[in-house]
């Protein structure tokens, strides 16, 4: 532990950043529908807690905060392993990572609230992760079935 000074306002800064990470993680968990992103958000919340604990440990001048953070790190690793295994299983069943599919456990008789699909963000064509480089064909172009090419164009 470096022998620098750690004042209360330093602690406040650490706590504030930790609170911000925690809150942003909450928002991510609440609003995102992708299972993986939801778990990433949960990890983000853990990061916020870890930051808080380290700040407190430094402020009090003992190791307890760091040790708790190490424990959290380990538990987060366990959680990641298990949740990713579950995600793979869920994906194998539904071929989708949408958490909205999994809502069978609800009060009987309640209507399923449809996602408001008209609010969907318009698809932005152009450079992005979803556009793939096109190799210019060389030689004779192979026979491509109409269905397959139509699918690709879509």
């Amino acid at each position, binding site marked *: 532990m470096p022998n620098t000074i750690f004042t209360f306002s330093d602690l406040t800064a650490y706590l504030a950043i930790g609170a911000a990470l925690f809150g942003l993680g909450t928002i991510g968990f*609440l609003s995102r529908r992708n299972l993986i992103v939801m778990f990433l958000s949960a990890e983000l919340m853990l990061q916020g807690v870890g930051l808080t604990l380290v700040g407190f440990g430094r402020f009090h001048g003992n190791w307890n905060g760091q040790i708790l953070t190490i424990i959290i790190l380990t538990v987060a690793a366990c959680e990641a392993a298990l949740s990713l295994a579950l995600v793979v299983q869920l994906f194998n069943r539904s071929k989708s990572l949408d*958490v909205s599919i999994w*809502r069978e456990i*609800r009060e009987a008789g309640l209507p*399923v609230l449809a996602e408001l699909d008209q609010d969907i963000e318009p698809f932005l064509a152009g450079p992005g992760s979803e556009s793939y480089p096109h190799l210019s064909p060389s030689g004779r172009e192979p026979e491509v079935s109409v269905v397959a090419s139509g699918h690709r164009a879509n």
Partner: protein
Amino acid sequence: MTHNAWLVPALPLVASLLTALFGHRLGKNAHWPVVAGIGSAFLVSLGVLFGMEHPEKFLLMDWIHVGSLQIPLEFGVDGLTAMMLPMVTFIATLVALFAAGYMAGDPGYTRFFSVVGLFVFSMTGLVLSNNYILTYGFWECVGACSYLLIGFWHEKPSAAAAAKKAFLVNRVGDLGFAIGLFWLWTIIPDGNLSYDNVFGMLKSLNETDRLGIGLLFFWAATAKSAQMPLYVWLPDAMEGPTPVSALIHAATMVTAGVYLIARSTPLLVGIDSMAPIVASIGCLTAVMAGFYALTQTDLKRVLAYSTISQIGFMFMGIGSGVGSVVQFAVVAGMFHLFTHAFFKALLFLGSGSVMHAMGHVIDMRRFGGLRHRMPITCWTFLVGSLALAGLPPLSGFWSKDEVLAALSQASHASEASGNHGVASLYSMIYWVAIFTAGMTAFYTFRAFFKTFFGPEKLPSPTDPEAAHDDHHHHGDDPYFGKESPFVMTLPLQILAFCAVFAGMVFAEPTTGWFAHLVEHSVGFTELPHPESHGFDWVTAILGTSSGLIGLGLAYMMYGKPSDLPSRLAKTFRPVYEASLNKLWVDQIYHAMFVAPILALAQVCRYFDTYGVDGLVRSVALIPRNIATGLLLRFQNGVIQAYAGVAALAIVGLLFILVFT
């Protein structure tokens, strides 16, 4: 040797636990731990018997010590204990051995042996206990084991009902025991209910208390030992496996009531009205059960009624303890208990052997003439029947003779003390007992002849009587119609040997060992000592001739095919019906006790359903309506909605923490 007495209950307990935990791994060998455990307990108890010189007690631990209530976990070894321990463990060993053959292939094999081990633990604990409360604990334990074993085939509705009946009837008796204990505790100044302590304080207790406690204990004994009016459970208890009937419902557990009264003799001595009550109940039970046994067609039920009747004899013996006869009376009752254990276990195991060969058919109308097919069973059963009929020189003769002699002496003693009413009561009981002895011989040999003599007949599904249990198909049973295996006939032969010699070796007129042993019990030294009396030839001759008459009648009616029984049944139709239907006691009990309680239960049920539940439901409607109106929609299955509620809850908690 006596300091090892704690091993006697401990070894079967360990064996039972081992079987319960690891029995399923042993498979067909699951009986070995229990047989070995009980067998070694028998050896230890032999050491206790020969090593006992005077009553001793061992404090194992302080069990409960609250205020003035002291319940030490203490064992005592005295004459009664030293006599009972080898008897219980010896018969239990043989029965366990027999059961290894009898129960082979049963799905509950390990469970059976585990509970048998537990029973032997409880029974030996009951006998060893030196304290009324500890006795009560083990008394309940044997009741629980009995329940478990009667209902062993619990998938059979009749077995489940019989187990329930036995348990409930026994609860009625246990209530008496419990109240008696409370009463005793309130009058013993230091609250210590050890036998030696209680018997040492007799001077300070008044007679009313002692009589009340004695009657309450006798109440308990009537339930456990199947006496009037609480005997109804024992015939139904024959639903259990036959080795269980032999061990628990004939030889050991049902005699616990006799043991309790014998054990409490010092407490009850000197109360004039107690002994005649005990003797009268015993006499009534004996003659009534004998009467029922005359017409039963179920071999095991004949033996069950005979057990009830013989326990009635034991109570007659103990109940003849008036004046100076007290000690002799206890010796007579306990001696009958002792010999009865051997020959009744023998008879039950014999009937089990028959059942085993007949594919679990026990109705005597469906088989007959088995003496060539099952010679060993036949001859050992004959020995048991002769002993039960009380013919000399078999063991039953000596003990029955002592009971009768005690009754006759009680009559004389009452006469001498100027109590003519009691004297005539005892002489009446004496004659009824002699008559019952004849009846005993008759029904025993009726069963013997019907089973082993006459034309050979094996059960077949075409019998008219077979309609109600047609689920037995024994075409592939390797033992059907054959003598039982060695593991079953060996116990029969050993028990037959004991049934012949147990009386001769221990009886008063020959060696007097038994009386000598019983005298060395806690509190017995102060009892009125019997003046020496010779062998009562008149009683012996009367009892024997009564038995011979019964045997002769049975041979006339059942020894060879004849229509005499059916003609008699027609002639004395009401009597026959009364015996066959057991005087309608079960029906009367049902109408008097069971039906009103069921009706009360119905009333309670309706009150519960509409009164209490209605109130509760109407209270529950309030949150229910709030929930359906407001909260239901949050349960929408969307994980993130739940997480959002949790986040808002954290916000709320933070507000409460900071702003209050």
